[in-house]
C-alpha cells in the first residue's frame, strides 16, 4: 500500500522558508502572490492487511519520526 504524508508547520509557527520564497517570487514579479508555506511530502510503501491498519502504523511513524509534533502537523492519505 502507498501512504502519502503531508507535514506542515502548525499555524502561527514562524515559517522562514515560506517567507523567503514569497519574497523571492515577488521579486520575480509575481505580485498576485500572497502567503507561501513550505512543508514536507513523504511517500511510503507499507505492507498492511487493510487501509485502517496502514493508517495506524503510519500515524505512529509520524509521531515517532516523520513529524516534529512540537511545531508540525501531519496528514495521512492511504492509496492502494
Amino acid at each position: 500500500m502507498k501512504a502519502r504524508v503531508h507535514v506542515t508547520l502548525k499555524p502561527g509557527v514562524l515559517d522562514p522558508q515560506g517567507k523567503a520564497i514569497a519574497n523571492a517570487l515577488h521579486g520575480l514579479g509575481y505580485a498576485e502572490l500572497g502567503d507561501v508555506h513550505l512543508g514536507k511530502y513523504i511517500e511510503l510503501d507499507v505492507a498492511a492487511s487493510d487501509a485502517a491498519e496502514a493508517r495506524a502504523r503510519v500515524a505512529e511513524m509520524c509521531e515517532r519520526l516523520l513529524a516534529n509534533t512540537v511545531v508540525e502537523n501531519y496528514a495521512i492519505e492511504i492509496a492502494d
Partner: protein
Amino acid sequence: MTAETKITPEIVAEHGLTRDEYKRLRQIMGREPNLVELGIFSAMWSEHCSYKSSKKWLKTLPTTAPWVICGPGENAGVVDIGDGQAIIFKMESHNHPSYIEPYQGAATGVGGILRDVFTMGARPIAMMNALRFGDPSHPKMKHLISGVVSGIGGYGNCVGVPTVGGETNFHPAYNGNILVNAMCVGLADTSKIFYSAAAGIGNPVVYVGSKTGRDGIHGASMASAEFGEDAEQKRPTVQVGDPFTEKLLIEACLELMQSDAIVAIQDMGAAGLTSSSFEMADKGDAGIELWLDKVPTREIGMTPYELMLSESQERMLMVLKPGREDEARRVFEKWELDFAVIGKVTDTGRMVLMFNGAVAGDLPIKPLANGSPEYDRPWTPTPQRRPIVLPRGRDDLDAVLPALEKLIGSPDLASRRWIWEQYDHMVMGDTIGRPGGDAAVVRIHGTRKAVAITTDVTPRYCYADPYQGGRQAIAEVWRNLTATGARPLAITDCLNFGNPEKPEIMGQLVGCIQGMAEACRGLNFPVVSGNVSLYNETQGTGILPTPAIGGIGLIADSARRADIAFKAADHAIILIGE
C-alpha cells in the same frame, strides 16, 4: 484573556508570582494591575530576568581589572585588547527549550547569544558551546543529542560565525534536563561600543528585525519553572529561529553603527519587548511611551499582552537621535528587515503602553526594576564526601592498558570530532587553532594578535565539593588558555543548578560561586558577564551543579602560539606541575 480579565489568585499563580510578590506589585502600582501589567511583572520578576535567588552571591564575584571596559550588567562583557580594540563576549543557557525541542531550542540559543554580542557593536568572530547530556543509552538521548548539535550547527553555520569549540559531557543526572550553553565572542573598536541606556527626551524608539508572532509567550517564566510531567503540554511555546534574518540583522546593525545615529540599543531576548524596553528605560533613568499597534506583526489580532511578552526571535529595540529615522530605515530596508518607530523616550519615569489610542498599561519603571525581589535563600554547605576512588599505585601494565582502553572508549573521553565536524569552524578565515586542542585560537583580523577561547567545568568535582569544583573550573580554564600561549583576560559563566529553594542546592550554588570568586581573585581573572539557569530538575531530581566557565585570553603575536601536537621525534617531553 483580555485586558479586562479580572485578576484572580489563580491567574496570579499561573504567572508564577508568589503571594508576597503580588502584594508588593500592588503596592508599587497603587492599584490592581490589569492583565498586561501582571504579565509584565511576572516576566520581569521571573528568576530568569531578575536573578532573584543568585543576585546576592553574584555580587561577590570579582568583576574589575585594568583591562575590563564593561563588566556584568550590560548585554555582554567588554575587555580591552589594545590598539583601540575590544573583545565583547558572553555565555548563555538555553536548557529548557532545548529539552522540549532540541533543534530549535539550541538554534535559538545560538541566535540569542549572538544578538547579545552584536548589540554592543561587536562583529561576532567565534562561538563555543558547553553541552551536558544524560546517559547515552537513555531512550530520549540520541534524539536530543543529534537535535542539539544540528541546531547549533544549523544556526551558526548559516550566520557565518565559526563554532570553534566547546565541551560535551554525559551523566544520568542530565537525563531529564540537558544543558545547552552557548558562548559568543565578538570584536569591536573601543570607540564604538554601544550600550542600552535610553536617553534624550522625545527621541524615537525603533523596532527592527523580524515581525512579532505569538512565539514563546511565557518562555521566560517557563525557563524558571521546574519541569513536571506536563512539560509536553508546554510545547507550543517553542520559538523557531531564522538564522538568515539574523545574518541580515547583524549586517544591518553593524552598518548603522558606523554612523552616530544610535543612542542606545538592546536585543529582545527573554520576555521580548518587556525586558528590552524596561532595561533601556531603567538604565537611562527615563520613561518610555510605546505605541503597540505600530509593532510589525506576522499574525492578526495580537493583543498588547501578546505583543509585550512575545519571544519572537531576531528583533532589536533602539533609541535613535532625533531626525535620524530615515537614514536608519534605509539601512534596514536595504537588508530587507522590518523597521518601525514604535514609541518615544519620555521624562515620566513610566512605561506607558498605548494601543489604538487607549492606554493598555502604565507602570512605574524604577520601582518595578528596583523592587524586584531579591532572596537570601537558606543554604546548607555540601557535606564533605569521602573520595570514592582512592588513588593507589599500580605499575602492572596488564591492568593499565585495559583501563586506558576503557577510558578512551567512554563517552566522556571519546573523540568529539563528530560534533565539531558538523560546525563550520573555519568560516571568516581566522581560525588558526581549530577544535581538538585545549583552547581554540582565532586571529584578530588583519593583525598579529589572536584570542584564545575555551569553555570548561567538571560537574562531578562540583558535586563532590562545590567550592573546590568552582576553583578547579576557573583554574582549568586558565590553564587551557595559557597552554596556547595566551595571557588569560577574563571569563563569562553560565551557572546551571537545580531548585534554589532547596537549601542543599542553594549550598551548591553558594559553594561554587565562593570557589570561583577565590580563584578569580587569585588569578586576577575577572568575571565580566554571565547567566544563571536554575530549576534544572525533573520530578525533584537535580542536575549536577554545573557552573560552565568560558574564558578568553590574548596572544600578542599569533606566530608564537603553542598547540598540543607533538612536532617531531626526539623532542623532549616535559611534565610541569605537581
